[in-house]
């Protein structure tokens, strides 16, 4: 591919210069033939006539051949001139074509490169925004399920409500204990009633004793009159004691009835409180159970969202890695763009100075091209000896 000259085709049917020497051959043959006829005919009239015919035929043929040759030479000269003109025109046309098309190609390449860069940059930016929004969403979700968040609040609420229920249950148990204490008081009342009964018996005995004393005082006459007064007073005291004992018994019975009624009312209230407490406990358990399921679902969905978020982030990162092709494409196009520019410059010089074609060193040109490559891919493309689709990557060298 190092051939830099252009060659125009020459028609195969045209005679060449070397073939034109044969135009004199008929004259020579005529002269030689005439001489030989004269020599062998012994200068006879027939021989002389034949020799003259031979010579004249040779000369005529020679002249015809010469004329024909001259015409052919002229024609060849014309064709050579036309060929030279055509070659010059062709070179000029090719140069002009290159000078016109190469800048257009460069503009197309630069335009394509610019559009790709712009589009990929925008795409990358949008992916970047997606990643940021995804990170924010995942972080928010993570915070929602961490301690101090809704899950933490639920767990603390569960504990607090349980403490309230326990506290109410303790209070209820205390009240029941107090009622048991009140119930124990009725035992003292029974004792008081027995004591009042004892007082009544003592009063009756005392009254009987006072009666006997009065009898004995009456039997003693005047000497017993004072003792009779004392006996009468003792009888009065005995009666008062009995009346007091009766009132005590009445009071104790009243107190017993009041305590019994109070206990009954308190017991009913305690039963109601216990029922309310049990219902409250059950309601709290049910509500907390519902919230617990909601929180668990929330925690699960948050975990799923975090996992999905991480997966999507990874996918986007891989897509961003794939978008790095743009940088490689841009470098390849930039190299081709520069190379076309150089070619355009050279063709411009050729158009101005035909001798400059001799100065083109194709090997040096290709070497410069190779030196301007940054990627293995470009070098492989240049040599065309290996798989050009192979792209070196993931290579990290620490110094």
């Amino acid at each position, binding site marked *: 591919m190092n051939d830099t000259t252009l060659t125009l085709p020459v028609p195969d049917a045209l005679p060449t210069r070397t073939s034109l020497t044969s135009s004199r051959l008929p004259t020579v043959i005529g002269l030689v033939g005439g001489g030989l006829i004269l020599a062998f005919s012994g200068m006879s009239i027939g021989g002389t006539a034949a020799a003259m015919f031979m010579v004249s035929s040779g000369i005529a043929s020679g002249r015809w051949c010469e004329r024909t040759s001259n015409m052919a030479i002229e024609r060849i000269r014309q064709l050579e001139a036309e060929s030279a003109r055509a070659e010059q025109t062709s070179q000029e046309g090719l140069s002009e074509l290159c000078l016109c098309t190469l800048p257009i190609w460069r503009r197309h390449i630069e335009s394509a490169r610019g559009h790709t*860069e712009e589009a*990929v*940059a925008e*795409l*990358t*930016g949008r*992916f*970047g925004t997606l*990643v*940021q929004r995804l*990170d924010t969403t995942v972080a928010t979700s993570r915070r929602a399920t961490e301690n101090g968040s809704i899950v933490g609040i639920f767990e603390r609420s569960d504990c607090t409500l349980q403490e309230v229920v326990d506290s109410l249950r303790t209070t209820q148990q205390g009240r029941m204990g107090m009622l048991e204490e009140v119930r124990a008081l009725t035992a003292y009342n029974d004792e008081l009633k027995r004591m009042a009964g004892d007082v009544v018996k003592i009063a009756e005995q005392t009254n009987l004793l006072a009666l006997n004393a009065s009898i004995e005082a009456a039997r003693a006459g005047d000497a017993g009159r004072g003792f009779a007064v004392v006996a009468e007073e003792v009888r009065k005291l005995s009666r008062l004691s009995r009346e007091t004992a009766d009132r005590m018994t009445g009071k104790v019975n009243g107190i017993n009835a009041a305590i019994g009624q109070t206990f009954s009312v308190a017991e009913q209230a305690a039963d109601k409180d216990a029922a309310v407490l049990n219902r409250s406990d059950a309601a709290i358990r049910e509500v907390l159970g519902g919230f617990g399921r909601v929180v668990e679902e929330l925690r699960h969905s948050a975990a799923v969202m975090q996992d999905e978020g991480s997966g999507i*982030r990874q996918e986007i*990162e891989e897509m*961003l*890695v*794939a*978008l*790095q*092709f*743009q*940088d*490689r494409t*841009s*470098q390849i196009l930039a190299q081709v763009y520069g190379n076309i520019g150089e070619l355009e410059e050279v063709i411009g010089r050729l158009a101005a100075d035909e001798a400059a074609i001799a100065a083109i060193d194709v090997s040096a040109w290709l070497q410069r091209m190779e030196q301007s490559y*940054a*990627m*293995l891919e470009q070098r492989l493309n240049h040599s065309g000896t290996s798989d050009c689709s192979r*792209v*070196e*990557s*993931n*290579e*990290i*060298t*620490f*110094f």
Partner: protein
Amino acid sequence: MAKTIMIVDDSASLRQVVSIALKGAGYATIEASDGQDALAKMGGEKIHLIISDVNMPNMDGITFLKEVKKHPSYKFTPVIMLTTESQEGKKAEGQAAGAKAWVVKPFQPQQMLAAVAKLVLP
């Protein structure tokens, strides 16, 4: 306080790809489009690491690296070269100029982050 990493590349999309990966790992980033732009943006700010391309207009990566190593405030800042250039000669040039690592594009973000975590200043 997030550590700051400067990204120098003439490709806006590449800068964004690197920036997204670094920001996702908690780093702050400064972007520059070539060596000159990077030197202009370095104005005294603490930079914990520089990631630079090699082939760039105005000032290429190797020249920029040499300038960084002459800079009194940044001469100890580690520099990672991130480039499509994989020739051993170029790598040797980068090493001689003071680069700490040579990463060939396209890169995997996780590998890049591992290299950054290894080299970033405390």
